[in-house]
């Protein structure tokens, strides 16, 4: 099976001493992997390293077999991500923002913008300025932006932040639909254990900067039980 993501010995340490240490992670094409961990454990740092937003202190990252550090443009092409800021320019509309992103992908049809706006429930707000959006609407836009170029690997950092119940359902349906139809791989960081439990087939716990991998439904235990045990064991 093709590997969507391979991280080998990835370390990123900040001056505060926090960060991630010697992370080894291998994600197969089609996996939906949930990233969990306490606040400040290094989840966002891990995702930023995967997308080149942060350069690791040491280690190697490969996306679909291409070294991220050696050939960033080629490696990042099949990747969609929502990490931190959602919009490129908040004084512009979601349609304009997505059109700007679409310029990097000449192969995607013009209808793709409307399609992702429909998928995230933002179509009727396509001509409103993003600066007027609520937190949840901005989050929906971020998800639309991540899915725009029909990526093979989608990396989402706290995608449920600010979403209402309808938004949560929409996000879950969108992920399940995209994963089922196109075999897209997802890496999702979240504190919503129940959401992750419904979506993921694998989990990666980041505790004290180190990674622990788990398959879903191991020994019939719930995600919460497995997670709490892992945190207690680490402390």
């Amino acid at each position: 099976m093709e590997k969507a993501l391979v991280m080998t010995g990835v370390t990123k340490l900040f001056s505060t001493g926090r960060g991630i240490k010697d992370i080894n992670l291998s994600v197969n094409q089609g996996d939906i992997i949930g990233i969990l961990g306490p606040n400040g454990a290094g989840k966002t740092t891990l995702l930023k390293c995967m997308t080149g937003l942060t350069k690791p202190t040491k280690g190697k990252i490969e996306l679909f077999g291409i070294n991220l550090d050696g050939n960033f443009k080629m490696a990042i092409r099949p990747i969609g991500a929502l990490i931190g800021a959602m919009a490129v320019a908040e004084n512009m509309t979601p349609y304009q923002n997505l059109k700007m992103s679409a310029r990097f992908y000449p192969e995607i049809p013009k209808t793709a913008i409307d399609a992702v706006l429909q998928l995230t429930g933002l179509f009727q707000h396509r001509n409103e300025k993003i600066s007027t959006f609520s937190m949840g609407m901005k989050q929906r836009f971020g998800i639309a932006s991540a899915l725009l170029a029909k990526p093979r690997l989608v990396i989402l950092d706290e995608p449920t932040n600010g979403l209402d119940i309808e938004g949560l359902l929409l996000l879950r349906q969108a992920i399940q639909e995209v994963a089922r139809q196109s075999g897209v791989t997802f890496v999702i960081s979240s504190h919503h254990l129940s959401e992750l439990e419904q979506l993921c087939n694998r989990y990666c716990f980041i505790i004290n900067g180190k990674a622990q991998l788990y398959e879903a439904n191991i020994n019939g235990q719930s995600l919460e039980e497995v997670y709490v045990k892992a945190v207690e064991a680490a402390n």
Partner: protein
Amino acid sequence: MNTIVANSYNELQKLVTRRVTKLFFGVALSIPFIVKLVVNKLFITDWMALPSENINFSILDLFITIILPLFIFIAATYLFTGESERGTLLIVRPISRIELYLTKTAAISIIIMFQLLMTWLSIIISSVLFDQSFHFSSLLTSLAASLLSWVPLIVLTSLAIVLALLVNSSVLAISSMIFLYLLMFVLPYLFPNVMYLLPSSYLDWYMQWFRNMSIQWLIQTFTYLCSSFALYFCTGYFIFSKKEV
């Protein structure tokens, strides 16, 4: 679409859709009209003695020493410090760091060129409307002056970008740029030899082309401007390449 072309469009779009850019375009169009109207219709006697071409150069000087540097500082702060603050400086799109940096610099430079051309157009139209005599030669002279002024403004842009990348706050970035720019005008009074090293001293270098300067001096000045740009551009890229979101 080529990545460089694509992101140049994007950065231009980001700048053009801002109110402040539209305001500067409005200033570029209106100031020459206002000046010509005041000078020619309201009978300001001291200015009446000047040939209209000198007034055109005075208007251009106003733009290249005050208005356009101010725009450069605002644009560099928005595209670099501001984006760093908002977390949008680096994007998860197939574009390399050097291309991202290059296209941001190019976008500011292209808008400066547009501003210069709009100023020139406004000067020409207002000259036709208000000047008692208008010569075709002044059309070409002022166009050449505008195009030549682009070169030192690009150098100033690359220097402003370095400053924008060095600080983490937009307020600090713009205030330090303005302070340093003012300092560049004060320093030559205290240390006259420093003048030849400051980018601000070359903003009106177009005048050298109209004063029968030797070709050697012009080449020397052009070489200095190019090397200054290379130095600032590389320094800026070095800082940009180390940036993390």
